[in-house]
């Protein structure tokens, strides 16, 4: 019913609103609610989705407060979890659409919160503005203050008067920056990882910088994978390590051949530990969808198969968690970290000293030409060639993403976008194919050790494989058209302009 919305002011360090330092005229502050000092937790997804949406979720023993620049809502405290498993309320309602289904909310920082609630009153003792002041002092990270100014209807003047002064007084911070400070992260590094590679850098240094960064991302996902907070931790972990391997294998001539082989083996050994769990995660995430694909009569058998997957997943998760916490793993990943921290210990290849932009152009252009060549006659080519095309597209995508900062991120981004559409088609083709194979493997495993459910499960698998084969064929039929769409004149011109300049387009 208040006409003006609450105004939220975030600041670094101590409170941005020091009542003693404000010129309030005939108005004065008094305590509205006695001050409290409690523990607090900053709640977010590991990748900071709430902060990225311009809000902070602060949980205290009494309640959860969602604080944004023009918003504040509250609901009783609840343990962080997947959004749809948390109680319904103003906060969880406001977060739907921000927190993806697969991401769990978790405590990302904790500490002590001093909360003061003041009322600004006029000479009649009438409240004209409420001030909800938080001093958040995290155990790690830096202190952040929050001032929520809640105007009362018809008293906007008081709000403006105080807001003006507070704005001039404090060190302002936006919610994303405030969250980074509380988490003890570099506020500049929030959002998507943008590696610190530069135009004047040799290719070798650029490669090392990208790998360093991806190892750090992978390591930041270890704890969540061990705690099994959500399946995205392992996914992120694998994506980061896959990027590392891509740099190692795609940046040809940057490392010596022997070094490349060694690094491939070492990172490959780590990745190998995680594959089965990820496969099972993917199955289980799609459980409902898969079951819906097969006829009613085959659903019970398929359900049993998924129950077995769920059991296996629990075992795999425990195994991986134990391994990620083991001395052996920690030593190995630590060594790899140190290896790239001081890259001088790495054996360089013949192209190590080439400047990153020249090196990148040559790599990307070559890969792009390869994609075009392979795709030219894809309509009648054997399926193996579609798989090959998919892999080349993926490598092209990685290369473009790695080097995007060197070539005008927005131009590269639009090329990546059109490439992605082609990749989606190829990816589905591949997924359906891989799933058929792995379902048949699962079937073989179950048949080797038969029990009362074997026949029912086999029938379920048979039905699903049939549907997946049909879907794969559908995707296969679309590949040529997908490529034709990707292979437009504009895209060709853009690739040439960015990665093969100095030559006229055909």
């Amino acid at each position, binding site marked *: *019913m*208040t006409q003006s919305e609450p105004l939220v002011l975030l600041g670094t360090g101590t409170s941005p609103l020091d009542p003693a330092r404000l010129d309030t005229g005939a108005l004065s502050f008094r305590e509205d609610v006695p001050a409290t000092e409690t523990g607090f937790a900053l709640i977010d997804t590991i990748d900071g989705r709430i902060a990225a949406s311009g809000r902070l979720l602060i949980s205290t023993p009494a309640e959860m407060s969602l604080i944004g620049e023009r918003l504040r809502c509250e609901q009783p405290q609840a343990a962080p979890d997947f959004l749809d498993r948390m109680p319904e309320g103003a906060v969880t309602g406001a977060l739907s659409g921000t927190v993806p289904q697969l991401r769990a909310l978790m405590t990302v920082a904790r500490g002590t919160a001093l909360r003061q609630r003041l*009322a600004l009153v*006029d000479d*009649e*003792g*009438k*409240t004209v503005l409420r001030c909800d002041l938080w001093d958040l002092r995290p155990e790690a990270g830096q202190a952040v203050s929050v001032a929520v100014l809640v*105007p*009362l*209807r*018809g*008293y906007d003047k008081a709000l403006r008067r105080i807001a003006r002064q507070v704005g001039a007084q404090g060190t302002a911070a936006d919610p994303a920056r405030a969250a980074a400070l509380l988490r003890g992260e570099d506020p500049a590094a929030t959002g998507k990882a943008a590696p610190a590679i530069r135009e004047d850098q040799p290719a070798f240094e650029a490669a090392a910088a990208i790998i360093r960064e991806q190892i750090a991302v992978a390591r930041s996902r270890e704890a969540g994978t061990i705690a099994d907070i959500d399946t995205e931790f392992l996914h992120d972990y694998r994506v980061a390590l896959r990027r590392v391997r891509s740099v190692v294998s795609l940046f040809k001539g940057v490392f010596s051949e022997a070094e490349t082989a060694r690094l491939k083996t070492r990172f490959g050994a780590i990745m190998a530990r995680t594959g089965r769990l990820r496969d099972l995660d993917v199955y289980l995430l799609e459980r409902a969808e898969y079951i819906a694909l097969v006829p009613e009569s085959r659903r019970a058998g398929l359900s049993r198969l998924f129950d077995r997957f769920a059991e296996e997943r629990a075992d795999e998760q425990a195994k991986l968690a134990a391994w990620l916490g083991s001395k052996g793993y920690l030593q190995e990943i630590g060594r790899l970290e140190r290896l790239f921290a001081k890259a001088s210990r790495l054996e360089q290849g013949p192209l190590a000293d080439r400047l990153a932009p020249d090196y990148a152009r040559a790599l990307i252009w070559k890969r792009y030409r390869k994609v075009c060549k392979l795709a030219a006659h894809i309509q009648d080519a054997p399926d193996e060639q579609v798989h090959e095309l998919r892999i080349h597209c993926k490598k092209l995508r990685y290369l473009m993403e790695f080097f995007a900062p060197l070539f005008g991120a927005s131009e590269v981004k639009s090329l990546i976008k059109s490439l992605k559409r082609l990749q989606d088609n190829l990816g589905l083709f591949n997924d359906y194919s891989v799933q058929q194979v792995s379902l048949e493997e699962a079937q073989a495993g179950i048949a080797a050790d038969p029990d009362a459910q074997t026949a029912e499960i086999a029938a379920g698998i048979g039905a699903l494989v049939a549907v997946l084969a049909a879907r794969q064929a559908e995707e296969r039929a679309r590949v040529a058209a997908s490529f034709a769409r990707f292979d437009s004149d504009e895209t060709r011109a853009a690739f040439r302009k960015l990665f093969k300049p100095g030559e006229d387009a055909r």
Partner: protein
Amino acid sequence: MKIVACYSNKGGVGKTATSVNIAHGLAKTGKRVLLCDLDPQGASGFYFRVKPSKKLTEDRFFTDVKRFTDAIRGSDFENLDILPANMAFRDFDVFLSRMKNSRSRLKKALASVDGDYDVILLDCPPNISVLSESVFKTADAILVPVIPTTLSERTFEQLLEFFAERDLPKKKILGFFSMVQGTKKLHAETAAAMRAAHPKRILDISVPFATDIEKMGVHRAPVAAFAPGSPAVAAYDALCGALAGRL
């Protein structure tokens, strides 16, 4: 949105205290309430520490929706806003009578905040006038505090007669007993007689004569804000319940 008028054609019956405490009581239950202080002798705005708005002095006020909504002030209590009284309200009924279609204009001014409020509570001036009549027509319910004395009984019957003469819907009238002193035999007898005579018009609710209600002037707040355990609060809450049931 429901419009509730708090009205008495006799002064000093606890009408403003009723308005203030009912407004606060309804807001406590989660209803969004706008209390309009229309009584120049009353002081419902005073009890909420809200200063009269200068903007209300102009004649255009009730024709101008924005002026109306801009004059509204948030009280210190959740869900409760105040439209404060103003000197110009002394001429309020005259102003209304000068207007053609005063009913529809008043209605329009009130409807302009529709969606904002569940209940608009009018603290009305204590005389039967053009304003009163238009309020009677507009309101969904009319709360009438009655001190159980012979004189008040007569005034209440005058109000019923007025409704009959003007063909106004009597069923809107919700009388209740105010400033009741349990020790007074006369109060008990009059109350019983009135309930018997007007069983549909008089609620079985008695707000006691309480020092806590008198202390509202000192605290400048509704009774429940400084004496939540007072028997007066229980009576007002019962009145809120009965009112909500009628709306």
